[in-house]
């Protein structure tokens, strides 16, 4: 029996950090689904299994549901078996599975609305779908009951959804599935979904393939589906990890410590993306400090560089830097500015506890600090070190304009 095991497509997912670009991210997932089905067709699988969470929620937009069902219908020769997960549980008429799209879906599409067994190519697909969002019960227990009803030599493949019961790694009400759930139920293979990274357990009989499309930076092992080939009852499944993700998520760093080197490094990293600007989610972090001109020119350069990338994010934590001599010159030229910079340090120390190393003859008293903040209508408890750093930057950056 050949399966393409997928899970956690989370179609319709919300991507807060991408704002107006989020709808494009959602669209990308549908394309990935189409591509994965194409792989299934090419490999002539007996079942295209979705082990839960095809949708992010039961109340996703109907347009997404229609698109998904339409794509599934495009591959009429690929039997598709869908298991409702904790994000899209089969809760009755309000669930996504009762939408007209699914009621009238193509014949190759089957949704397990309740626990049941389906015969496929002489074997059995035994499904234990979720009918609620949380539960402390192991949904794989139902599989054992069902599997016991089918004696004989047919391959038994279980499908369910939930967290693997790894101590301290799961919530108690997150449908905890025993790590030996496959062998315990006498299954040849247990297709599970829930977590978004690839995870194989129970001596290679239980697999959580992770999400086919990563949804955040730094996801270690996502973006795959599993091609599973089971030779016969009792044989160990052969599992192939197939990368299907459309988008690559990349975090890049730029440090002003050595601007030239940083530029070179950044260009190289971007070159690795191979010009796949629309398939790359890029997060660029600017660190360190530089002179006003370098800062401005670099920021301009980086902005131009990232402009073609629709899913680029820039985290600018860089700031203006003066050399000690420059700073000393400025302070000597403008004693009142020197005093104000010292006041900022003192205020940061008094409000957010940043250590104050500057020594100045006229120290800002706590009373002065309270009065100034009250007059400025600034809530002390909401102040962060960042505010003082920005203030310092503003003073130094604007000094030249003022002069």
């Amino acid at each position, binding site marked *: 029996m050949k399966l393409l095991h997928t899970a956690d497509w989370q179609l*319709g997912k*919300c*991507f*807060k*950090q*991408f*704002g*107006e670009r*989020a*709808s494009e991210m959602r669209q990308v997932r549908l394309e990935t689904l189409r591509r994965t089905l194409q792989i299934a067709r090419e490999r002539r699988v007996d079942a295209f299994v979705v082990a839960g969470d095809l949708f*992010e*929620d*039961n*109340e*996703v*937009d*109907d347009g*997404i*549901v229609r698109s998904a069902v339409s794509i599934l219908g495009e591959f009429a020769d690929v039997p598709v078996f869908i298991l409702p997960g904790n994000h899209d549980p089969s*809760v*009755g*008429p*309000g*669930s*996504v599975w*009762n*939408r*007209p799209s699914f009621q009238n879906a193509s014949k190759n599409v089957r949704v397990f609305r309740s626990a049941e067994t389906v015969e496929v190519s002489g074997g059995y697909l035994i499904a234990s779908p979720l009918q609620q969002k949380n539960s402390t019960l192991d949904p794989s227990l139902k599989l054992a009951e069902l599997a016991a009803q089918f004696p004989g030599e047919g391959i038994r493949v279980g499908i369910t959804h939930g967290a693997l019961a790894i101590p301290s790694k799961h919530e108690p009400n997150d449908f905890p599935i025993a790590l030996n759930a496959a062998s315990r139920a006498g299954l040849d293979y247990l297709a599970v979904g829930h977590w978004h990274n690839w995870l194989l357990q129970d001596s290679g009989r239980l697999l959580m393939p992770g999400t086919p499309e990563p949804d955040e930076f730094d996801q270690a092992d996502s973006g795959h589906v599993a091609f599973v080939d089971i030779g016969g009852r009792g044989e160990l499944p052969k599992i192939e990890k197939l990368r299907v993700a459309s988008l690559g998520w990349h975090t890049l760093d730029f440090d002003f410590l050595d601007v030239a080197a940083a530029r070179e490094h950044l260009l190289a990293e971007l070159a690795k993306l191979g010009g796949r600007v629309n398939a790359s989610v890029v997060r660029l972090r600017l660190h360190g400090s530089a002179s006003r001109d370098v800062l401005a020119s670099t920021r301009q350069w980086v902005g131009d560089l990232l402009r073609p990338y629709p899913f680029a994010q820039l985290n600018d934590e860089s700031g203006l830097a003066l050399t000690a001599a420059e700073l000393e010159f400025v302070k000597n030229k*403008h004693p*009142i*500015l020197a*005093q*104000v910079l010292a*006041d*900022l340090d003192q*205020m940061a120390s008094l409000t957010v506890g940043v250590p104050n190393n500057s020594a100045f003859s*006229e120290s800002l008293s706590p009373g*002065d600090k309270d009065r*100034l903040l009250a*007059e*400025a*209508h*600034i809530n002390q408890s909401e*102040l*962060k070190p*960042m*505010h*003082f*750093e*920005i*203030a*310092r*930057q*503003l*003073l130094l950056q*604007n*000094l030249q*304009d*003022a*002069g």
Partner: protein
Amino acid sequence: MIIESIELDHVGPFRQKVSIGPLKSGINVLAAPNEAGKTTFLRAAARALFDKHTCKDDEIWSMQPSGSELAPKVAVVFEHEGQRYRVEKRFLNNPESRFMTWNGGDWQLLADGDAADERVQKLLQSSVPSRGATKAAHWGMLGFLWAQQGEASKWPDWDEDWKNETGKAIKSRLARVEMDPVIDHLRSLLWEAYTELFTPTGKARARGELEQVEMELRKIGEEKEQVKQQRLELDSMQRQFSELGPRLASLQEETAAREKEANELRGEATAAELQLKEVEQRRGEFDTAKERLETVSGDIDQMTKFGGRLKDVQTELVRANTTLTDAVSKENAAKQDVANAQKGLDAATLRWRQLNEQRERAANLIKLKQDEKKKADTEKLAKKAAGYAESVLKLRAQLEKLPNITPAKLKKLQDLNASIRECETKLETIGLSVELKPDSAAKLTATREGKRESLSLKTGETETLRAPQSLELLLSGWGRLWIRAGATELSLLQSTLADDRETFREQLAGVECASLKDAETAVARRRDLLKEIESAEEKLGDSLDEFASLEELQSEFAAIERQTKALRETLSPTPSEAKASLAELESNAERSKVALKKAQESQSDADTDLRRLQKAAESFGKTREQADREKVKLAADVTGLERQVVALEERYPQGLERAKAEAQGAFVRAEARHDEARKKLPPDADKLPERNKRASAAFEQVRQESERRKSEFNQMEGALQSRGAEGLYSKQAILEEREEALSKHVERLRDRGWATRLAHDLIEFRKQAATRAVLAPLESRLSSTFAEVSRDTGRRVFLDEHLQIAGIGASRDAMISFTHLSQGAKEQLLLCLRLAVAAEVGPSGHRLVVLDDVLVNTDGQRQKRVLDLLQSFGDQLQILIVTCHPERYRGVGEAIEIRGE
């Protein structure tokens, strides 16, 4: 700048051209009473110097003379930096502006119209508002140096609301604060950046970027909340739906069970119903037989009772006939006794009535006697009172005829007459007095007041001639000698005399007297008459006795007379009665009273007898009636009983005993059939119909409930399918994505805004600290100036960082704040500050200090010291003092007057 002169034409109270000047350097005092137009001069000068000639603000209209349409014209000549200038402005109608300079002994036009306004504005470093008239804030340096009337204790803000930099410049010069211009500019840049997004109070600026983003965020928040609410409702529906399924299944099971139970019970109930009907029929037959038996037994008993009763009634009827005869006889005898007693009572009543009439007549005769006596007394009294009343009337008539003059008026007349006499005497005395003492006898003719008289003078004797105005003497042998007086006093006396005489005449005429003597006589006569009237009224009062007036007395008399006449006509006394004295009448009345009493007792006795006999007769009557009724009733009873016996005998032709035997047989048979039918009934047969009904009702209830739930289930299923497809999650997701982006934007703006504000405020804080550090010298200067006025060297004047006077005291901690100082202290302090400012800016040309009625709350002692202080500044400034208290500034500086043409 110093002002040389101010000219006004058609301004305020001045409808003609007026001016003040020339004003000099040093102290100039314009002292004049209130409403003389002093302040008008100053205000008009300010309008000419600082306002556009085309301005039509209320301030300008207020310059126009009230009730006129005249165009106010103002001209000010001033000297600035060694050059003389003249500004001429006409406002409102055909407005004009001319600006000239003194050149070569003549005024040379520099500019006119708007250009003139602008030249002056530039020269004086003043400004104009976009609309309306200027305020002190626009007057450049003069805004600080010009203390306006009523605002002596107000000091303009150095920094706020000023249209130019004058205040700041003065402040800077005074405090010698050398702010780093780069840092000051940096501070301005930061403030501009901050106020693009925020208000000074930290709120988002209206229509600014931050406010717009926040508004959009709020809107998204509201929409998101709505979607969340809808999702919660959907969840709730989902839960209800999941609970509804099992409930519906349970109901459907129960419906089936109930239906089966109801059908079984219905069959049992139908069978029991038929059996019950048969039992009911047998029961009816049994009841009929029982009833027949009871009827026959009853009739037999009745027949026995009728026989016994008939015999008893017949015996009673015989006894009743005897009783009736005896009662009729007794009643007739009693009626005869009653008729006799009635006759006795009628005779006694007649006697009593006669005696009562006699007694009433005797009493009326006594009353008549008494009334006649009273009538005579009242008549006598009325006549006497009428006499007194007539006297009063006569006296009052006399009084009416007298002139209407009171003693007070007489006193006035007498005083006036005395005054006239005195005037005349004075006239005589102070007129002309000529003493003639001839050496030898001589004759002369003297003419006084137009009267000529001849006089003979004897040798050595002095003849004194007096005349009020002039005296013309014709001295024989010498000629005419005419002596005339022209003293003013004489004229006044004559005028007074003429007035007094006229008044005297008018007053006499007013009281209708020909002379003072007549008036005096009238007053004396009036006084006598009033006394007589008072005496006559007193007697009249006594004669009226208890009556309030003569009319009342006369009315009483008339009433008594009418009563007496009526009584006499009613009684028509016989001659003997008429002659009888009151004592005789009273004796007769007493006798009648005794006889009447005896007759009354006889009548009462007869009445008692009559009642007793009537009662006895009534009693016998009742006995007779009762016996009669008893007889009739018993006769009727006998007849009725005889009829009933006959009727019963006719009802049973076969005889009563046989009929009873037949009924007993039928009863036993019916009872046996009824018992047999009852034994056939199933147990609880009577409860079966009720059980059947209950089962049907229960089935119906559960069926309906089941249908209702089914319908609800279907509806909810439809609703869930429909609402589930609304895509609420996706809607929420889109809103959250937008919200996230906007929140980050707001956060960035706020962070940057706060940082900007912190940087700005810290610069400002350090700037103020620097300012405070250099306040000490200025405070010392002000303190010493104020000490000259207050003579209190122990106190110091303190300024705040805005260079406003904070207060005075031994130390900053123990100072009394400016707002809590007396008005006098405030105006003195501000005067000192003005002088300090003027001394500071004077060298640059701003030398004019205007003090418009500023020391209104300053005591005399300090006033003198203030004058000393002003004198000390006089050599470097032009101080223009306007006051309505000239005595306070006598001898100070140059006195200025308002001159008209």
